[in-house]
């Protein structure tokens, strides 16, 4: 139910954006975010709920770097 997946913004008119999910283009509502083309957004139920700061690979590297600091 709360599945959301990242996609790359191709173009946006401020209301609707064309978002690419590994080659699949979908129209997404961008009323909750303000993404630039090229940025990744997290999409849930046809709605972008956040702009992602970085791509997934980098994110996972940073995740474990963070843990090292904690232990």
């Amino acid at each position, binding site marked *: 139910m709360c*599945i959301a*997946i990242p996609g790359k913004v191709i173009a946006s008119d401020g209301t609707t954006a064309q978002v690419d*999910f*590994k*080659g*699949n*283009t*979908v129209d997404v509502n961008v009323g909750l975010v303000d993404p630039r083309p090229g940025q990744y957004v997290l999409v849930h139920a046809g709605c972008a709920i956040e702009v992602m700061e970085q791509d997934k690979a980098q994110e996972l590297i940073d995740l474990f770097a963070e843990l090292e600091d904690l232990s």
Partner: protein
Amino acid sequence: MKITMAHGSGGKTSAELMSSVFGKHFKNSVLDKMEDAAVLDISGRIAFSTDSFVVTPVQFKGGDIGKLSICGTVNDLLMMGAEPAYITCGFILEEGLEIETLDEIARSMALQAKEAGVIIAAGDTKVVEGSGGLYINTSGIGRIPQGRDVSAANCKPGDKILLSGTLGDHHACILSARMEIENNITSDCGCLRDITEALFEGGITVRTMRDVTRGGLGTILNEIADNSGCKIQLQEEAIPVNEEVRGFADILGLDPLYMGNEGKMITVVKGEQAQEALALIKQTEHGKHAAIIGEVEEGKGTFITTRLGGSRVLDVLYGEGLPRIC
């Protein structure tokens, strides 16, 4: 021009449709006799199968319902180790169907039948009220050469499982069209005869073959594990999935392991023949992306080793998936 109830009347309008569409594309020595039934010379062990096709849209990237109806039944025969020979086609047309569409579909069936090496030996057409839909039933028979023993009950510990290519392409292609999601995903709809011939001619002892259609890989492997009384262990990372299909599956929360295909098969062979079988499959048109995805072990059930080394059960598909993809 559209199909009307008159095209199913059995009268002159029906006869015109027969000659202008089906007669034009399906010419062959058996059908041209126009008798009540085809009379065939065939002997020995025979595989016999039937399947109905209800996909919407009827035309899609990589094929149409006609091509699908030939490949589906031919593939079912091939999976028993048979050499498909004859096929019948029953059409149910809804009034309002464009005759041009029907013509394109009949042409594609004829082409596919030729490529698959089967003769269309009999056919029938009925028209029902509706809104331009089209359904096809095909039945086929094929000879099983001496010495072939292919069955879902034949697997033994130590055997390897080969998948002929990427998962989920047909399912994703049909759903994309229905949901108007833009991508380049093409249906894998195709006849697997090149693969089965390569394996048999290459001298591989094939234990089991299954085409991976509705229910997906998960469902089919569970059936094989049950029938053979063995455990199947897969490696998640070895299973090929096209990136675009993966993206599509993510959007809808689908799992490629349960998505339907129309031109993919698994083959189970003796462990020591696995590399040889893989090389043979990879040389064929329909098996370019084949991979060894797992093996048969003592025990029961189907399991998958995940990317990080975890293990989980791979169960059958529950619920409906989504209707009318084949």
